């Protein structure tokens, strides 16, 4: 009897593989996923874009590895590792080459972050999750804790989720001229409420509200501002309250689908931002090949203390162009292919993509993406 059952299981699995069925995902399934990015920002040795007083060239290699193991019908454990190599202007470089500073990476350009998580989902579709993380980079240490709750209703037509996170961070106070001060704390409390609603057999929408509060050392310790004929430290308020609301809509169009998104952000530093995004999912080869072109528009009104340069020092000041006024246009193309995997009977997803971001202050950048997703 056992042999017959095993034979039937093998036949069904083989038929599924032969027909190339893309596995339907369950949030507790065992998976392995990798995502890598190569990010390049070119400032033409300073002066080309962003703040003309800052050197803002940057190259970043980032990889994220995720392993999720299903423990039983209702629980799963996750392990996530993020690693970065960052090459940018640093205070070490500044002392040697007399360049101004935009990022502190120093002689140690690495960053890593570990996260351990646990998920639970009951038979009546109640979900609960916990995670804890630790990350470190040249001038920064971070410990994070998170909790998530979710519930599905109406035959899973409605899905409501809440996430809460706390970060307890330590900032190394390395100034742009190489001087050092005692470490400073930075704490972040954030919460997100989201609601996903199936609208019709061909459409689904999602809306979310994200709120966060930060206190402590919120300036970038190594950033500087030109004040008259000298250079002074960046200083910002020590409290920041941020809110974001987002709406996304997904609509199936025969074999293909389109996704629209709108978002609005504001904080007590007077930064206001709006985002509009459109993605199209073009299916080829019965959905085993997906071409995903995307476009994203971003508009930002800068912080009230942002300035390119000062005549005399103000209490709060920053020349970081990321806190200034600008518009951004981002276009991307992602190609995803489902192919037979090396060590699993399930189909494996491979991704390759490119994005280009053009800013109105001419501080442009692009990034390449590689992805690998294996249902285990």
């Amino acid at each position, binding site marked *: 009897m056992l042999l017959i059952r095993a034979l039937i299981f093998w036949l069904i699995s083989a038929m599924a593989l032969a027909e190339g069925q893309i596995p339907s995902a369950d949030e507790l399934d065992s*998976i392995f996923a990798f995502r890598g990015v190569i990010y390049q920002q070119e400032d033409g040795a300073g002066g080309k874009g962003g703040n003309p007083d800052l050197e803002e060239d940057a190259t970043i290699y980032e990889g994220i590895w995720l392993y999720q193991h299903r423990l039983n019908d209702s629980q799963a454990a996750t392990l996530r590792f993020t690693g970065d190599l960052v090459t940018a202007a640093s205070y070490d470089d500044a002392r040697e080459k007399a360049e101004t500073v935009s990022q502190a990476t120093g002689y140690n350009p690495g960053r890593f972050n570990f996260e351990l998580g646990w998920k639970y989902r009951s038979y009546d579709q109640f979900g609960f999750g916990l995670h804890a993380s630790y990350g470190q980079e040249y*001038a920064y240490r971070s410990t994070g804790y998170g909790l998530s709750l979710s519930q599905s209703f109406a035959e899973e037509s409605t899905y409501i989720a809440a996430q809460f996170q706390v970060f307890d*961070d330590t900032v190394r106070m390395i100034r742009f001229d190489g001087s050092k001060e005692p470490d400073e704390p930075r704490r972040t409390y954030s919460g997100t409420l989201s609601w996903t609603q*199936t609208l019709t*057999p061909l459409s689904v929408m999602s809306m*979310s509200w994200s709120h*966060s509060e930060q206190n402590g050392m919120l300036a970038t310790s190594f950033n500087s501002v030109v004040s008259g004929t000298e250079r002074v430290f960046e200083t910002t308020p020590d409290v920041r309250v941020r809110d974001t609301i987002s709406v996304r809509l997904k609509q199936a169009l025969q074999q293909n689908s389109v996704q629209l998104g709108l978002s609005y*952000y504001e904080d007590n530093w007077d930064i206001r931002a709006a985002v509009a995004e459109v993605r199209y999912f073009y299916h080829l080869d019965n959905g085993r090949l997906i071409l995903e072109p995307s476009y994203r528009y971003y508009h*930002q009104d800068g912080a009230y203390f942002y300035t390119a340069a000062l005549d005399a020092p103000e209490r709060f000041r920053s020349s970081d162009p990321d806190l200034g006024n600008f518009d951004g246009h981002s276009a991307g193309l992602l190609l995803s292919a489902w192919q037979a995997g090396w060590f699993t009977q399930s189909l494996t997803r491979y991704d390759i993509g490119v994005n280009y971001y053009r800013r109105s202050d001419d501080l442009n950048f692009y990034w390449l993406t590689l992805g690998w997703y294996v249902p285990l």
Partner: protein
Amino acid sequence: MRLLVILTVITITACTPVRFNERERLSQPDMTFDSSPLQGELESDVYSAREGATGVFSGGGGGGCGCY
């Protein structure tokens, strides 16, 4: 902001119950908002490092990294 509220109200009031057996198309990977578990996270990392806003189409905001 006003546009978002209007769009949301119109969308929600227009919805009708969708039964389990009507969701064949919705179950396909491209009909989930984050079909790859890391794609949205990675994009969010890139955007939040270069923009003042955080939490756009994702949760969290502002902690755990050396950026703003």
